[in-house]
């Protein structure tokens, strides 16, 4: 098969590793994780890529989305002329953990978990939003703060940074998803620093790459959903996570 894969750049390391070893031809397109800031933008961007691929490669056997539901961003995506397939996952933590069941157990055990991946740490996207109250604010956060000061005054800006960043005080764990593919420990150590800055305990969890593998190797069983031409992806609001419905 020729598979056209659209992947979030927070998943690049395992995607490139397994695409290279796939028995099928896999063409990769990567999209920035920063698109997650606005779910409508992420949906539009992925749909634009799906539409582009359908036009440019009408013989592609399938489009592979290395995404989960991602807060509902992928719900609404339409397959017009080529099928697309994605894992039944709320977000990419499930894909790294290897199963919905393992993700559910982790989430129930520690709901206040911030997930780190090698690519996410290296691209600095994950925490661009709300690093607070210390000398190590990321550039993105500093820029946001300065924009707020200019627009609303310092007092309001300080309040906004506190209010919008407060979720961090509700979290208790930073979990680094170890794939065994990183060339060194730098990303894991950075994830640990970011966790400790926030008073979160830090854990390294071993990934299970079988969902990545099956997705990119065309082994689409019940852990995946194939959305066929004329269908649209929708939330299923149950353990299946996603379902396909008629597009019109």
């Amino acid at each position: 098969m020729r598979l056209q894969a659209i992947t979030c750049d927070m998943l690049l390391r395992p995607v490139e590793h397994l695409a290279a070893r796939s028995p099928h031809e896999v063409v990769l397109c990567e999209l920035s994780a920063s698109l997650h800031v606005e779910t409508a933008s992420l949906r539009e961007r992925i749909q634009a890529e799906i539409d582009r691929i359908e036009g440019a490669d009408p013989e592609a056997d399938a489009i592979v989305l290395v995404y989960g539901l991602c807060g509902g961003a992928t719900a609404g995506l339409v397959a017009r002329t080529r099928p697309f397939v994605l894992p039944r996952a709320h977000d990419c933590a499930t894909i790294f953990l290897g199963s919905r069941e393992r993700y559910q157990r982790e989430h129930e055990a520690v709901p206040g978990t911030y997930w780190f991946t090698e690519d996410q740490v290296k691209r600095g996207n994950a925490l661009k939003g709300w690093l607070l109250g210390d000398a190590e604010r990321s550039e993105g956060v500093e820029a946001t703060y300065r924009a707020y000061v200019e627009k609303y005054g310092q007092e309001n800006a300080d309040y906004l940074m506190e209010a919008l960043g407060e979720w961090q005080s509700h979290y208790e764990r930073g979990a680094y998803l170890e794939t065994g593919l990183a060339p060194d420990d730098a990303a894991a150590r950075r994830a640990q620093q970011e966790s400790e800055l926030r008073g979160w305990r830090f854990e390294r969890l071993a990934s299970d790459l079988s969902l990545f593998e099956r997705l990119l190797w065309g082994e689409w069983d019940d852990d995946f959903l194939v959305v066929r031409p004329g269908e649209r992806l929708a939330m299923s609001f149950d353990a299946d996570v996603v379902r396909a419905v008629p597009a019109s």
Partner: protein
Amino acid sequence: MADLKRLQVAVEVGDRETAVSVTEEALHEGIPPLVILDSMTDAMGVVGDRFARQEIYVPEMLISARAMKAALALLEPLLIGSGHRPDKIAVMGTIKGDLHDIGKNLVAMMLKGANFEIVDLGTNTPADEFMAAAREHRADLIGISALLTTTMGNMRSVVEAVRAATDLPHLRVIVGGAPVTRDFAVRIEADGWAPDAASAVDVAKAVVETARGRTAHSGFIDPDVVAALRAAAVAAV
């Protein structure tokens, strides 16, 4: 001389200091607290409309709500002292498994400005806690928020508990949050849904008014239903 228009503008632009100082002036001059409260509520209505038209976004709503909250804090002891109590009580919380509360906090602040008493249960709230608080405070409404698709399903158990509570026939439940779609709210048989904090206030008011038999509507309430009810009310005049 206190100028309530200045108070309104201060709330609209999130100028907390001016909102508080004009409120102090107004109270000092003997302007009734309820009149001052009305100005603030009107201002939050303007803020809500601007948000609905996407002229402003969450940061502006937050600073406006905060300015109003600070001014309201000056009025509350006087309102309570004169026997005025909010006529609607809402229990608010983020659903079990979910630790995010910005949206819920914003809705709570705006509901306070709309004459609701708020019982805020915080985050990660299971159904039995919602119900216990609803009983203890004789609430009209439970408002649940979720930011994660992972946790949305837990809202079902709150709706089921509300329906099973035959001792609380007037209790209603509304849901919202970034991934919470209207479709989901209908599917779990919530009484109402809103896509954002601004419209949540109108939906909350309409749901409670309907539970009290004061509207001609029965069934699910969303912003479209609120608009239709308003249009019908205008036409009837």
